């Protein structure tokens, strides 16, 4: 049934939630990070602007007096701020004081070498005394501090987002479980038991949503299947009754004719005043003999139509023979020859009456096919054989073949090629149901090469009588 490997909705949802959670929290954190970065950079730039303005004012007097010690002190103080990576102060008379933060956080007095990397932010300002330039101050700002802050911010943000989304996912999953997955599981269980023809289970879900509707719809469907099945059974029983009446008619025709003739003969004796007691006794005895016949027919049919409640250990050949007691006359009246090839000798444990019903349906169909198509030398061949596990029965006629499209449908309920009067379309359907469901075997129909159709039944050798 399943062509794909099975994976439950639960697994799919967990997978989707995982992917969803990860990507949403990543996207959100990334967005948050960029916004924060822009903001912090802007703030830093404002700080640097303030810092350099203050520096340029603080450096006016030292630069004017060219007090290198003082300048150095100011620069050192400024370098205490960790965001400052380097400072360059120039003054008159080639004064140049450089401060630089080395990789191991020490401050060294060394003016820029050529290969110094471009700083994150660099600001230069002239130091003016009475509107006259007396020097410049340059501050380099590194982004280490900024990046560290941003990274911490990113981590905490990501963690919070992730937590929130995981929480939401769990809530969503639980809701899915309660409202969809668990009810679905319940429905699925019932569907599976219904597939195995157990229609006693109902889905017990009271929800005012689509799932509730599905459960309700499914229950209604099961009920209608049960109704339909009941109807099928009662229709097929009616059909079987009709069949029985027609077979009894065949069976009774001869005895009734003999009895009537016997009575006619008695009447003639009276009419001719022939009171020969021997003749009268003979005739009366013949009439009685015939009534025994009639009564036996009734017994045969009553046995046939009372289904057995228990399995019996029977020989399939015997079941077939018993069948001919019932339908044989009807075949004979239509001049149909019977060929029997019995090659099975192991009794099997089955519901023999049900098997008889199957045989009757197939034999009846074979008879009708032979009569309707006016086949010459109509013959029905019944053969049995067996191997280690199974008993095989085939019932063949020498009539016409069945076209392929019809052959595919002959076991469908209500499928019939006969007119409404003669066929209910249930006989073969019931036969298949009986063989598969009750006798645990299989049945098929195939055309023969030389014309005619064979019905093949395979029954497992269930010899275990303890079942």
């Amino acid at each position, binding site marked *: 049934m399943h062509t794909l490997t099975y994976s439950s909705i639960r697994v799919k949802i967990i997978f989707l939630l995982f992917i969803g959670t990860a990507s949403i929290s990543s996207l959100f954190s990334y967005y948050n990070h960029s916004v924060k970065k822009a903001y912090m950079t802007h703030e830093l730039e404002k700080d640097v602007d303030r810092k350099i303005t203050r520096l340029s004012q603080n450096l006016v007097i030292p630069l004017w007096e060219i007090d290198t010690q003082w300048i150095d002190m100011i620069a050192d103080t400024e370098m205490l701020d960790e965001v400052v990576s380097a400072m360059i102060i120039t003054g008159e008379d080639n004064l140049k004081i450089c401060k630089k933060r080395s990789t191991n956080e020490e401050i060294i007095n060394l003016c820029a070498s050529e290969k110094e990397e471009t700083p994150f932010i660099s600001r230069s300002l002239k130091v003016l005394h009475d509107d006259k330039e007396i020097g410049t101050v340059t501050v380099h700002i590194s982004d280490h501090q900024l990046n560290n802050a941003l990274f911490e911010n990113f981590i905490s943000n990501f963690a919070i987002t992730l937590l929130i989304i995981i929480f939401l996912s769990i809530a969503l999953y639980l809701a899915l479980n309660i409202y969809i997955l668990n009810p679905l599981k319940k429905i699925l269980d019932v569907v599976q038991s219904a597939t195995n023809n157990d229609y006693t289970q109902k889905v017990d879900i009271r929800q005012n949503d689509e799932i509730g509707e599905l459960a309700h719809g499914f229950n209604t469907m099961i009920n209608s299947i049960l109704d339909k099945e009941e109807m099928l059974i009662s229709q097929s029983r009616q059909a079987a009754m009709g069949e029985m009446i*027609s077979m009894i*008619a*065949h069976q009774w*025709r*001869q005895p*009734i*004719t*003999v*009895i*009537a*003739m*016997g*009575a*006619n*003969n008695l*009447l*003639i*004796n009276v*009419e*001719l005043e022939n009171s020969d007691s021997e003749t009268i006794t003979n*005739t009366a005895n*013949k009439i009685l003999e*015939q009534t025994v016949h009639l009564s036996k027919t009734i017994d045969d049919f009553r046995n046939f139509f009372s289904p057995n409640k228990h399995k019996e250990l029977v020989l399939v050949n015997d079941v077939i023979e018993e069948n001919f007691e019932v339908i044989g006359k009807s075949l004979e*009246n*239509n*001049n149909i020859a019977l060929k029997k090839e019995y090659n099975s000798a192991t009794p099997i444990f089955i519901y023999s009456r049900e098997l008889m019903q199957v045989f009757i349906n197939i034999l009846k169909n074979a008879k009708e096919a032979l009569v309707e198509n006016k086949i010459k030398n109509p013959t029905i061949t019944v053969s049995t054989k067996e191997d280690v596990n199974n008993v095989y029965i085939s019932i063949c006629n020498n009539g016409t073949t069945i076209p392929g499209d019809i052959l595919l449908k002959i076991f469908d309920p209500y499928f019939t090629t006969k007119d409404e009067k003669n066929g209910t379309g249930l006989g073969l359907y019931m036969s298949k149901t009986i063989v598969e469901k009750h006798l645990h075997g299989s049945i098929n129909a195939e055309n023969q090469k030389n014309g005619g159709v064979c019905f093949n039944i395979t029954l497992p050798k269930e010899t275990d009588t303890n079942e």
Partner: protein
Amino acid sequence: MNKLQQLQNDLATARVLYVEDEEEVRIMTLTFFNNIFTHVDSAANGEEGLELFKKKPYALVITDLNMPKIDGREMLKQIRELDKDTVLIIMTASDSNIDASEIVCDAYMNKPVRFLEFIETLEPLKEKILRKAAKSETKELP
């Protein structure tokens, strides 16, 4: 003289052929016919019936329809082709849904047949049977 004795006397010269495949029915019915007719022969199927008919001239043939080998319909058709004067009566079970008009016959009776019904069916055919019987006798005489 009652109706039966009248019929016995009238049809004393007529040869009758009875064809029926069921043995018990044939034996019992033969007793019945022997009480009515003087000369009655019986056959178990259409083929035997035809053979007998070809040997002797029968004035009346009474037959079942469903029989092995040659069935009643076919036998009656062939008898009619051999002799158009012979009276043909069908005596068969009613469940076969037979359209009597399709079959060559002078009368049709459903089994089981009642004694009086049989006599009444035979009454109107009596003259025809006698004519045929007389014709056969004149043919046989020289």
